[in-house]
């Protein structure tokens, strides 16, 4: 109940190919995150699955059944939009009840399911309000409530948190994860924020330019990025890339090293450089260092680190944490 399979799916808008021949398997109950830079085709892919757009080629199967030409209403999927897409003229109750009404459910059933959803989402006090009288987080919950009551085989989320402020985003992130654990339904979640992807996903699908760059669990992607794009996209701050002579020494066109995998010393180390900018966060210190013969590197040190702009520091990468890439950008 809720496995989704894409076979050779492609999509073009006129001339522009937005999704190119893509295969993907999503197991029942998984929390899958599509992540990638803006404009890479995440929303388009989600809308293809939802049935809001027609595929240009390939097939989409839900629970083994071909739904490529099935209209959205009959795919038994629910979607939460970035803008929430609440019906502004209906109360919260009306919004949540709408899919049930469309399905022809009886009055008592509607009443009961709306109550259940409201309880799960802490919306009981707001049932009679209009969407414009709610805060961003509450609106988001209504949108989720509207999705829940349909008891869909899978939930689709399109950047649901991007309109919320930072603190609320963290809280809602947690709520959605908990919801997934409670409902145990397949969820496909689209975001451009790799932190959301890392924290929520069972499985991450990294998209770029309409192609899948890599599929894997968060830690797999962190540890073994398949190429430069994934290496650079996953992890924050970004992985440092070094090419030229230093890379040649290790038999690669480019080497990559994450900021948290650099050891710093005032006296000795592999590379030497000068501190350009120091960002003291308390829990961490980020140093932007201009390395001699290498260029700028970012280093991340746990806790406080007493250093000033212009200081000379020595940097050494940790053993076995260097990623090597060939000329095509593929990991060696």
């Amino acid at each position, binding site marked *: 109940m809720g496995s989704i399979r894409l076979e050779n799916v492609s999509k073009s808008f006129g001339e522009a190919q937005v999704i190119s021949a893509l295969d993907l398997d999503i197991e029942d109950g998984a929390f899958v995150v599509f992540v990638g830079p803006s404009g890479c085709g995440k929303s388009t892919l989600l809308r293809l699955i*939802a049935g*809001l757009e027609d595929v240009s080629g390939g097939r989409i199967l839900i629970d083994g059944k071909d739904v490529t030409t099935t*209209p*959205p*209403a*009959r795919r038994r*999927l*629910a*979607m939460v*939009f*970035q*803008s929430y*897409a*609440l*019906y*502004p*003229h209906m109360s919260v109750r009306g919004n949540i009840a*709408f*899919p049930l009404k*469309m*399905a022809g459910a009886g009055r008592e059933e509607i009443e009961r399911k709306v109550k259940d959803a409201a309880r799960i989402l802490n919306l009981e006090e707001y049932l009679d309000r209009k969407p414009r009288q709610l805060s961003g987080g509450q609106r988001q919950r209504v949108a989720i409530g*509207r999705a829940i009551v*349909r008891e869909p085989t899978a939930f689709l989320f399109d950047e649901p948190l991007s309109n919320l402020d930072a603190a609320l985003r963290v809280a809602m992130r947690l709520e959605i994860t908990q919801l997934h654990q409670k409902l145990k339904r397949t969820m496909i979640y689209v975001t451009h924020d790799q932190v959301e992807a890392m924290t929520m996903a069972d499985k991450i699908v990294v998209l770029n330019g309409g192609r899948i760059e890599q599929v894997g669990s968060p830690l797999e992607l962190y540890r073994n990025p398949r190429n430069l794009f994934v290496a650079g996209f996953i992890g924050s701050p970004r992985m440092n890339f070094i090419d030229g002579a230093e890379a040649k020494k290790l038999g690669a066109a480019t080497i990559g090293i994450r900021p948290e995998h650099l050891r710093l010393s005032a006296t000795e180390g592999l590379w030497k450089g000068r501190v350009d900018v120091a960002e003291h966060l308390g829990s961490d210190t980020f140093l932007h260092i201009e390395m001699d013969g290498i260029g700028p590197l970012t280093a991340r040190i746990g806790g406080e680190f007493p250093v000033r702009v212009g200081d000379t520091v020595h940097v050494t990468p940790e053993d076995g944490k260097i990623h090597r890439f060939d000329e095509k950008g593929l990991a060696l």
Partner: protein
Amino acid sequence: MARAISTRRKVTFTILGWTIGFLIFFPVLWTVLTSFKTEGTAIATPPQFLFFDWTMENYVAVQNRSNYMRHMSNSIVISVGSTLIGLLVAIPAAWAMAFSPTKRTKDVLLWMLSTKMLPAVGVLVPIYLIFRDWSLLDGLAGLTAVLTLINLPIIVWMLYTYFREIPGEILEAARMDGASLAKEIVYVLTPMAVPGIASTMLLNIILAWNEAFWSLNLTASRAAPLTAFIAAYSSPEGLFWAKLSAASTLAIAPILVLGWFAQRQLVRGLTFGAVK
């Protein structure tokens, strides 16, 4: 405008503004005043502005002599009828153009507008002959149909500009929620677009109410709306200014009030969204 405006400047503009406003409005005001005079006072020299014997006799006379209420009801039937039929045809079309645009949508919209720019005399002869042959002359049905057609482009266009401001995602959400197309339009789009639909209605009722060319050419007496009925006062024999004023006041009062309510939408509707 965070700065204080000097009181002198404000006083100057208040005087200037009210004077000019009064002058522009004066013909309307004068019509209303004259409608309460006797025919004798109406043509008196020097003119009587406020201190005359106010009378309602003209309003009574207008109704008794010419069955005024019939023309009023003709105007209502034609303007409201043509607007409602127009909406019925235009809402689906505007939905399609706003939410499912294709490469040709823009051309279709502009083409629809261009039909509005067709001068009426260009089709006067055939329409007149068709009306004559089908016995539509001096009938409500024919005139309503013509007014529906001449205002349809404006209705489609106005609705289109309003619909375009509604996020498509909400309609997609309805689609995901299992709404059929008809339900999507009836339960989601239409209620959300109520303000836009209302303004469109308002503007079109005004336009249809005041339409003169077809009303004058296609009706005679039975189906004449107020525009055509009032024209009958142009006959030179005898001056009936007070009665003309009473009939005119009744004819313009309702639409003036509607117009004042619709002034913002008017700009949008009449410039086809080119000025907002």
